[in-house]
């Protein structure tokens, strides 16, 4: 990748990469929605969307057009500026995470926009921006359901951010870097075996905590308390419609893909999968994680609020801390 080292070539690559990324992420989001609706349908023995285009693949285009042409409605007595800013923050924060996620395109050819040495930390920073979107949206809507949804979301995200961050600390301790590329390319020298290994073999507990905390972090079922339809109508989404609703929706699905990609990168060796071409391997891993999230949504009922808090603070957080300590002890014992 000598292009990255050339000052002009670097900018060309980055500009092209950003344009490509916007396109790819948006398309992927659209088909994630389709995938979720079909998979959820099959779990409930329905076919899911199958009318617009072959296999309903153009359903999202139809939904998008419908939502885009809706009236851009802002309720009376709301803080108009904040009401508009909230979905913007959500979607911007969701896209920003993809700036630091590297993707292996082919053998020894990788692609990234910013190869930051604190990549994972940045992703967490961006994903916690999402809470601002939800709280501001809930506050600006001037609606008690929205406000309750926003407050719940703030509490939930703060509770699970800790466990999420701590669940990855053992990985960083083993690899010795926060750069996502370094983590993916982490190689071991065990006897005759020299090469990359999926880090889940070394930090299985970290993976389990990450999985649960990530579902809570993306506000998805069974941790979707901020928008709990049955109790809060739509939570922070209650007053949103048209394109502003699209932006929140988009952000949710981009975040879902982000946490799936991150799980693949951090625990399953990113784009390394036997002899399968890297980009396809990465795609397969992301799709499997997306399916896992959809499967969870199709299976488990929503947690009660106190259960959610108890799980976060009394189970996941102590477990994550214990995991860090044990990993530290093992590392010191084996590496001296």
């Amino acid at each position, binding site marked *: 990748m000598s292009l990255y080292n050339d000052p002009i070539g670097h900018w060309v690559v980055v500009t092209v990469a950003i344009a490509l990324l916007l396109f790819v992420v948006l398309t992927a989001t659209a088909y994630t929605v389709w995938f979720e609706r079909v*998979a959820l*349908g*099959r*779990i*409930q*023995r*329905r*076919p899911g969307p199958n009318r617009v285009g072959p296999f309903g693949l153009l359903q999202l285009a139809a939904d998008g057009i419908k939502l885009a042409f809706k009236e851009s409605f802002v309720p009376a007595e709301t803080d108009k500026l904040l009401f508009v800013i909230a979905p913007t923050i959500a979607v911007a924060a969701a896209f920003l995470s993809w700036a630091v996620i590297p993707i292996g395109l082919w053998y020894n050819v990788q692609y990234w926009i910013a190869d930051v040495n604190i990549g994972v930390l940045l992703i967490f920073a961006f994903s916690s921006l999402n809470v601002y979107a939800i709280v501001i949206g809930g506050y600006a809507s001037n609606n008690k359901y929205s406000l309750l949804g926003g407050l719940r979301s703030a509490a939930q995200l703060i509770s699970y951010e800790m466990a999420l961050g701590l669940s990855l600390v053992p990985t960083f301790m083993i690899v010795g870097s926060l750069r996502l590329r370094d983590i993916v390319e982490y190689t071991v020298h065990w006897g005759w075996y020299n090469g990359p290994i999926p880090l889940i073999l070394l930090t299985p507990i970290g993976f389990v905590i990450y999985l649960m905390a990530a579902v809570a972090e993306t506000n998805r079922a069974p941790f979707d308390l901020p928008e709990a339809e049955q109790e809060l109508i739509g939570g922070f989404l209650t007053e949103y419609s048209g394109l502003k609703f699209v932006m929140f929706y988009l952000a949710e699905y981009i975040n879902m893909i982000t946490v799936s990609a991150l799980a693949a990168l951090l625990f399953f060796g990113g784009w390394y999968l036997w002899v399968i071409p890297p980009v396809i391997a990465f795609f397969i891993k992301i799709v499997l994680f997306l399916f896992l999230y959809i*499967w*969870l949504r*199709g*299976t*488990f009922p929503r947690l009660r609020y106190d259960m959610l808090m108890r799980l976060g603070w009394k189970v996941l957080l102590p477990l994550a801390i214990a995991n860090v300590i044990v990993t530290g002890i093992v590392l010191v014992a084996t590496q001296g």
Partner: protein
Amino acid sequence: MADEKSSQPEHPTPLRGPREGVPAKPEGKHPGVAADVAALAGGLKTTLSEFFRPVVTTMYPEDKTVRSERYRGRHYLRRYDNGLERCIGCELCAAACPVGCILVIAAENSDENRVSPGERYAKTYEINMLRCIFCGYCEDACPVQAIVLGPEYELSDTSREKFIYTKEKLLEPMPPDVEARLRASAAHPSPLPDGERGTPK
């Protein structure tokens, strides 16, 4: 009335006591993390096995479910085999209709213009299909089985006006043999002057 209410005896046995029918909590310790995880895994297994089973949805516009033989759908006004309308304009259907969606205006039959075998016939017969609840009381009330409910249920349309079903829309077509006879007699008008039909020359 109030007296009767107060003197009513209390229900002898309540249908269900406060904790009746609720399974007792298992004795001893909480089942534990392993049992909880097993329960979660059981749930995931159930949904995954459902995922691979066939879809049960009927693809509606292409496939349709079988309707009951007694299904009450759109109305029809029937005719006799000789082409005359059954309806005699008695308005019993309109009287029986609980939502008042039927309008009948009757007119007298005459020898020149015979529409139904009775004294009168329905000059106007309209059903407001937006109001109709398809209860079938009109069919029950009709003394000559003129108004019946057919099996059709796909009645959607694009304007409210189109849901006022007029007599033309409701009336059955003429039986084909009657149709043929009428067409033939229109092509070859009777050579005899009025009032002299069938009189030998």
